[in-house]
């Protein structure tokens, strides 16, 4: 298994935070998995303020498991999770996991982001309502606050879920497959929202899971490759990871990385042979 340096990979790639910023959260020598199923061992991963890390790899490769373990939503099977201080997390789940049958407005869904901070017994107050409005405005859907979540388009639902995560005023925004099932226009718009949030000057760290390398190549500052079938976990700055050699090793076939019009494109080599 390839190991990671103890520094924050996103910070090394030029994120707007000092290089040696203390990590918000880190996995050290971690074994991740479900129950007794060990998926990956010796995982070393640190996320610092201002990082923009994309966890990529094939479907079913263990990406979401790594993310959930990093967030503490799944217990470690071995190793340790370092959390130097209480961390405010915003989480954006895979859109398909959120049932649109519930008659909740976009505003009501976003307000759920305040629930952990409020705790039981307390009801949302004026400050919470203001936070909901601000979060909706930050992702550009303030006018949709009173619309039912189930009546929104895929892109609008994704923005609603991002707004809910922002409503928790997070230091770390965790996003799971944000562009799944979207058309190219909605995909670009969603990724632009994440880029703008990251560049917003608040030191927000973003960790994103995606199997769409194309979608993250122009946004993330660091990449983590995950594939449980080959016991592969490798993380580093984008410049080191987004190379044909590294990607071909990840996907098991020749991969081309090209730049055109200021954007990076990643696709399999037409020949298909592994270099």
């Amino acid at each position, binding site marked *: 298994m390839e190991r990671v340096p103890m520094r924050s990979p996103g910070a090394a790639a030029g994120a707007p935070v000092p290089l040696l910023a203390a990590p918000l959260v880190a996995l050290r020598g971690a074994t991740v998995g479900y129950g007794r199923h060990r998926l990956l061992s010796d995982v070393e991963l640190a996320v610092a303020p201002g990082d923009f890390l994309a966890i990529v790899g094939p479907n079913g490769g263990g990406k979401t498991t790594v993310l959930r373990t990093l967030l503490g*939503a799944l217990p470690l099977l071995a190793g340790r999770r370092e959390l130097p201080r209480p961390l405010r*997390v915003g*989480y954006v789940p895979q859109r398909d996991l959120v*049932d649109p049958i519930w008659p*909740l407005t976009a505003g009501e869904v976003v307000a*759920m982001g305040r629930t*952990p901070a409020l705790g039981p017994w307390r009801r949302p107050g004026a400050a919470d309502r203001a936070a909901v409005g601000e979060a909706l405005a930050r992702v550009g859907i303030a006018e949709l606050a009173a619309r039912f979540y189930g009546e929104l388009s895929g892109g609008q639902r994704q923005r609603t879920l991002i707004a809910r995560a922002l409503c928790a005023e997070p230091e770390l925004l*965790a996003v799971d497959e944000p562009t799944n099932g979207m058309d190219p226009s909605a995909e670009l718009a969603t990724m632009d929202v994440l880029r703008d949030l990251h560049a917003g000057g608040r030191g927000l760290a973003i960790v994103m899971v995606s199997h769409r390398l194309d979608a993250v190549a122009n946004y993330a500052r660091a990449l983590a490759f995950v594939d449980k079938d080959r016991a592969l976990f490798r993380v580093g700055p984008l410049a080191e990871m987004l190379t044909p050699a590294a990607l071909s090793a990840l996907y098991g076939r020749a991969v081309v990385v090209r730049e055109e019009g200021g954007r990076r494109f990643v696709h399999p080599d037409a020949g298909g042979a592994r270099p």
Partner: protein
Amino acid sequence: MNGADGLAGLAGFLGAREIWQAPLVASLLAGALLGFLGIYVVLRRTVFVSAALTQISTVGLVFGLFLEERLHVEAEHVEHQLGMAVGFAVVGAVVLGALRPRRLPAEAAVGAAWVAASALVVLGVSRLVHAAHDLGGMVFGNAVAVPDQELWIIGGVALLVLAIHLAFAKELIFASFDPETARALGLPVARWDALLYLTIGLAIPVTARALGALPVFAFLTLPAAAALLLRVRLRVAFLLAAAFGVVAAGGGYLASWFGETPTGATMVVAAALFLLPGAAARWVRG
């Protein structure tokens, strides 16, 4: 029926207040309570969990009657029988609510629980001599004889459930709507789910003993479905479902009294009628 007969029937009804008062109030409380909880049952797509729980709570009643009749264990009082039913239902609710089978769909486990519980009820009825008739009423619903003590128990449970749901609405809704995110944000989703199922597990047996299993299943499904068909906001849907439950229970009870029809089945039909406006509105909207 002519006008004179109608007036005589009304006079007879008013004169028989002592007979219908407690069952009617119990029905109204049950309609409100089950209608409210039905929103969770329907939106969580666990309609058949409520059916299974209704049967499981009836197994608890059968067990209590069996202990009394065959083993001569003291279990004739309302609180003993309800205790059995509540125990069975709460354990069943927590187990079925926490089910995450890996090799089978959850529906298979729920279906197995329902069919096994139904079979146990039939077996129990076949072995009981004196209580078999009472049990038939409990399964299919009669709402005829509700002792005051049972009425107080239903009222107490309704108040307790209402208090829990008012105090923890945002947690119960978040954990039900998006458990993945709730868990990621540190909410103890399993505990909130257990609390929700505890309230459902309390409501089902105390109302099933008064109304019967069939009406309880119907009231956990139909008023909520009717409210949700109207495409109103969630908080309005909770209120509407409770109101539909009250009106269907009261209207069904009165219709069964004057029409001399089986009470439980009449209430179910009354509850089903509330589906019509929502279905019509959807049809008009295309």
